[in-house]
């Protein structure tokens, strides 16, 4: 019964003047996921941080503050994840530094270099703890296993993969199998003894240091020189990047190709695993593969649904990407040394703060606040709120239109500087058959100038042209004498004329193009 009575009661309504709706394209509809990826915001989007030269690798510390290291030229720069500010520099390299890798506790960092030497740094003191010398050619990949603190594996242009004992600075085993430069690799999340490497011989090899010292456990062929390879968090799948494709392989299933994502236009240079969290944390996180390419795109690939869920364009070729373990920071390094770091504001966990509630003293009538007590009380969850009726907010021109002060409404909209509102008011005036009357009533030079300024700017905008072209013509016809009398208005008219001439020129060239295309279309249609 209550519903029915609501329906029968028709309260008087008032409609504000609204601009026409804009067409929304299907693509621009923001899915929650693309909203999520867009929420990684750079603190200063206009001037991103620029390092000396191209950023060859990026890696996050697995330990709590999740600082990240970027290798570029002969240095490794450490950045704070909290502020995205530069923290410190490790520059004990003789040649270009490559592939920084944090140890599992985040206290040591290993990095390779073009000189073939691998160095292990203490991050606190910034001193070099160990030099691992065995590679004869540039080292492109150095990696700590996931939990093992004592070993390292590395690969380089000498096409040998080495397994190191860090403490003694000795090679435990040389893993030979690749026939070209080894450029990438990743440790298995399930076992510290297994890892995967990719090479320019198109092959991806899975190694197990326990069983075989010399040959790989498994080999798959990517078909293109492999630029990057990662284990996906389950440990059963690997993702490889090479050429312009990203491929997903099933390692447990014997190296079966699961999916091949060909969305980039140029070589994919780096991939990493990103996490999409649901708002509020419930529903768990889903993993995505983030890939960057020389074409300047960052793509987010949902490998459970085999679908690109988001893509983002950057102005330069991208070389490296990393995503922080707490999914709050995403950094991308470009070939010209620009670091695109994005941080998402993560809501503080409120639950922990509740405990620290201070005991309040009981208020006494002798105290001023006693008389204001509980006036700012917020409604608690179960309370029934008596809502105040929402007031229709009317803009200035709406109020004037309600009072039938048409000219004032038009002037007020023109002062408002929002062309959509101005056109909406004009349309409403047309519906009241008062628009031309308004033009006649515009008295001062200033009001006319406002109108002319508006017309000159927006007459040729396609969205408004339908109304404004005819209207401008009428205005010029009606107020010709006033225009000739005033210098300022003459300037406006001159500008308007220029805008119209420009538009005529555009239209003519468009017609020319149409003339060229339409015979082609006709021929195409005949087939």
């Amino acid at each position, binding site marked *: *019964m209550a519903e029915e*009575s609501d*329906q*029968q*009661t*028709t*309260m*008087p*309504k*008032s*409609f504000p003047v*609204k601009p*026409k*709706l804009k067409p*929304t394209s*299907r693509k621009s*509809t923001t899915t929650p996921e693309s909203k999520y990826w867009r929420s990684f915001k750079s603190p200063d989007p206009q001037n991103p941080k620029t390092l000396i030269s191209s950023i060859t690798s990026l890696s996050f510390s697995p330990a709590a503050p999740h600082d990240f290291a970027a290798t570029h030229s002969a240095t490794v720069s450490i950045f704070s994840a909290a502020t995205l500010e530069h923290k410190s520099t490790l520059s004990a390299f003789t040649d270009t530094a490559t592939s920084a890798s944090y140890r599992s506790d985040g206290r040591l960092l290993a990095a390779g270099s073009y000189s073939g030497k691998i160095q292990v740094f203490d991050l606190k003191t910034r001193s070099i703890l160990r030099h691992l010398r065995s590679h004869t050619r540039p080292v492109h990949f150095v990696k700590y296993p996931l939990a093992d603190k004592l070993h390292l594996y590395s690969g380089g242009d000498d096409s040998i993969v080495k397994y190191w004992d860090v403490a003694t600075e000795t090679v435990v085993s040389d893993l030979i199998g690749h026939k070209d430069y080894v450029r990438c690799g990743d440790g298995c999340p399930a076992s510290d003894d297994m890892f995967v490497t990719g090479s320019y011989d198109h092959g991806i090899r899975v190694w197990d240091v326990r069983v075989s010292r010399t040959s790989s456990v498994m080999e798959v062929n990517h078909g293109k020189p492999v630029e990057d390879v990662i284990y996906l968090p389950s440990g059963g799948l690997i993702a490889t990047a090479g050429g312009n494709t990203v491929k997903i392989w099933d390692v447990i299933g014997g190296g079966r190709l699961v999916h091949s994502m060909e969305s980039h236009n140029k070589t994919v240079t780096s991939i990493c695993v990103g996490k999409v969290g649901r708002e509020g944390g419930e529903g768990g996180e889903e993993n995505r593969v983030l890939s960057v390419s020389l074409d300047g795109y960052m793509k987010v690939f949902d490998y459970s649904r085999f679908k690109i869920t988001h893509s983002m364009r950057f102005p330069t070729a991208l070389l490296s990407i990393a995503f922080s373990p707490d999914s709050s920071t995403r950094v991308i390094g470009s070939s010209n040394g620009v670091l695109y770091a994005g941080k998402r504001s993560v809501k503080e966990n409120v639950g922990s703060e509740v405990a620290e509630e201070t005991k309040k003293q009981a208020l006494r009538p002798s105290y001023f606040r006693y008389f204001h007590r509980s006036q700012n009380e917020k409604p608690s969850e179960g309370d029934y709120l008596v809502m105040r009726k929402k007031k229709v907010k009317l803009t200035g021109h709406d109020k004037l239109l*309600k009072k039938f002060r048409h000219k004032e409404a038009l002037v007020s909209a023109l002062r408002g500087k929002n062309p959509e509102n101005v056109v909406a008011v*004009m*349309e*409403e*005036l*047309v*519906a*009241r*058959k*008062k*628009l*031309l009357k308004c033009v006649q009533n515009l008295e001062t030079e200033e009001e006319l100038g406002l109108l002319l300024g508006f017309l000159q700017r927006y007459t040729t905008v396609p969205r408004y042209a*339908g*109304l404004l072209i*005819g*209207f401008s013509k*009428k205005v010029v016809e009606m107020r010709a004498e006033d225009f000739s009398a005033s210098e300022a208005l003459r300037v406006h008219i001159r500008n308007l004329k220029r805008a119209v001439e420009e538009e005529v020129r555009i239209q003519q060239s468009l017609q020319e193009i149409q003339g060229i295309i339409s015979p082609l279309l006709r021929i195409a249609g005949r087939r």
Partner: protein
Amino acid sequence: MITGGKSFVTAPPAFSNDAKKLLICTGNTVSIFSTSTALQITELEGHTAALTSVIVVPATTPAGKILCYCWTASLDGTIRYWDFSVPESIKTIDIRFPIHSMVIPGLLGKPSGSNKKPLDLFAYVSAEAANKQKKEPTVSDGQVKKKQRNALGGQILKCNLTESHLVAGATLAETPKPEFITISPSGEYIGIQEKRKLRIWEVPGKDSERASYRKIRLHHTKSFTALAFHPTERIVAAGDTTGRILIWRGFGNRTFSAGVVMDEDERPGVREDDDADSCTTWHWHSAEVKVLFFSADGAYLYSGGREGVLVVWQLDTGKKKFLPRIGSTVFYLTSSPDPSLSSISCADNRVHLLQMPSMEIMKSISGIKLPGSVPELMKGPCSNLVFDNAAGLIAIPSESYCIQVFSLFDDREITEVQVCERNHQPGDEVTVVLNLVSLSLDGSLMSTVETRLSEEGIGGLVSLKFWARASQSKDFSLSTIVYEPHRDAGVSGFAFHPTRRMAVSSSTGGEFKIWVSDYKIQQRYQNTGWTCHAVGSYKKKPMTAVAFSFDGSVLAVAAAMVITLWDPEKNVLVAVIGESLEPIVSLSFIGKSEYLVSASRGSSPQLSVWSMSKLSASWSYKLHTEAVACTSDDSSFAVLALLPKSTKLEDSSESILHDVDGSILIFNVGDPVPVATWFVRKAKGGGLAFIHMNPGLSANDTSDGKPAEVLLAYINGDHEYVLFHPHGEQASKHAVTHRERHTELEDSAGRYGYASIYGELPEYKLKEDETPKAPLVPSGRPWETIFSGSSHNLPPLPKLCSVFLESLLERRTTVVE
């Protein structure tokens, strides 16, 4: 046979004495609505022409509040007396002249002395002039004068209601046309506004057949449109066509009470020798004042007009308060015996119940939307009324840019869709027009086309809107807006695909567009709506009408004179048929048969049936077709045709076919001879449809065992409708009865006040509520029952006392007679 769609605003409504019922004149009947639920309770049926007045006999004693008697007057020339609680007619007085307005001053006056014999009750009626024979003897001048006399319309007559006859020779006034009589709340004065003057009569305190009348006239320079008397003082207010309100104070001091004649100079504002002390003018309304009304205490004056704003004037100071945004012209304001309730009747066929001091609209009683004034050039080629055949609904565009969805079976508004978000403008010209509405076959999709007319060639806009309705809800929500669907050209026709989410619109600009809505995409993205799928044109001819075949495989588009057939999927022209003389305005496929019916208007109108298999005309008539309706399964169709002016039909049987201007014809496809024919009135602008009577909805049809009955619905130009069996005989008419729509008065009333917080008080409340149900049934010995029961259950003594005494009095009178 179901009728409905009557106007609620032809005459002012009246409240019952307990203010729980509202009596509204609806066509030939008085509909009684509950004021607490705004639903119809019952009807008074009996008059044979439209009702013009309803007057409730007011209660003189508090105990009389339960009395439910009323007087009604109608254009059929009768005055009836009703007990509207039962409801039944008690008395009928036939005065033989169509009555346009009636007032009964005797009801309002103070109760006369008890010792005297009750006086006769007199009514003053404004009747249409006597017919020719009666008039002629009074005319002594030449032929020309006689003609004028015949054209004369109104007379104010006096009627003795007690003895049921007109008072001979008591013609108060003759007016060019029947005028509306206004009576003062005290019953002392009656007045009419006649062009630029007011005529006011004093009703004698002891009215009799031979009473003489003192009268005055008040003059003004503009035509009057409204009139109201002050309840206690001698003040009269009148509104004119320019929106001014004139208030005369102390009118008739000279004539009526022989008071001191004031000095000529000290009568500000009074014209020449008019009999009034002063005249003041208020001006707020920009157009004519339609309603004037003094509040019961006389401190405020209410006025309303075309603006759709109710203005409250403080009488002493002239300060104003407003109830804005009513949305259409205010016609009447009626106050009820309950001081917190009154009603306003609006031009959009709606009666709003107002909570009085705050002037909040509590409830609205909505009738079918009345046809608006659409500029001639914007009129759609087809009738603008769309039916939902399955659910028995009709969608009607209204002047306030709404689509009203109205249930034909229930005679009730279902919902209202605001198509264009614009405020009501009391302008002279209509500039934004809703000119096309269409519903899909299942009623879940709707499309509307609205046009904003341009001002001297700039700013015109056509927009096409698609609306969708979820399966359970009754409200439509906007899905897509297409601005200028066919560039500058207007949309001439629109049709939905019968099964798929596809639609087609045709334009006079020479093209048609097929629109699709991909349902799969729609599920994924909320924002996706309708997109253009294909565009077609035929020799650049203006496209005037479109129709899909029953399975949607063929699309027929009328390109001016010819009909083109298309494959809607591939947008390929399949065939071209026919050549008519005038542009075709309506096309429809006949059920599942292979025939297509087309209608064209103009100087040589044509109704043609085309065979799809032969691609040629089957047969045709020269008929001016207003609407075509096809059944969905069998091969018959109905046509609403306007009769040509020159028809000889009316001469043959003038008495029956009075002002008939159209006919409904039912054809079988194969046979050009109509199966059935009915003659109808006001066919211009009417509509026609076959409605499926859902057997589950009417209980008494289930016994017949028939699957689903098909009714023919006819709605005339005034939006009054009738539903009947097209093939049935008289007998089957009884099978279709009104669905149970009379709701109980008391049960559905919302709980309020004390009861809403603490629940009902069982004993006491119910007893009071039930009293109106059994009015004046002289129970044998009430004193035996009313004091029974324990003392704490008894109602208070003042209440019991009156009942007790009343019952005694009642008994006494019955004994006397």
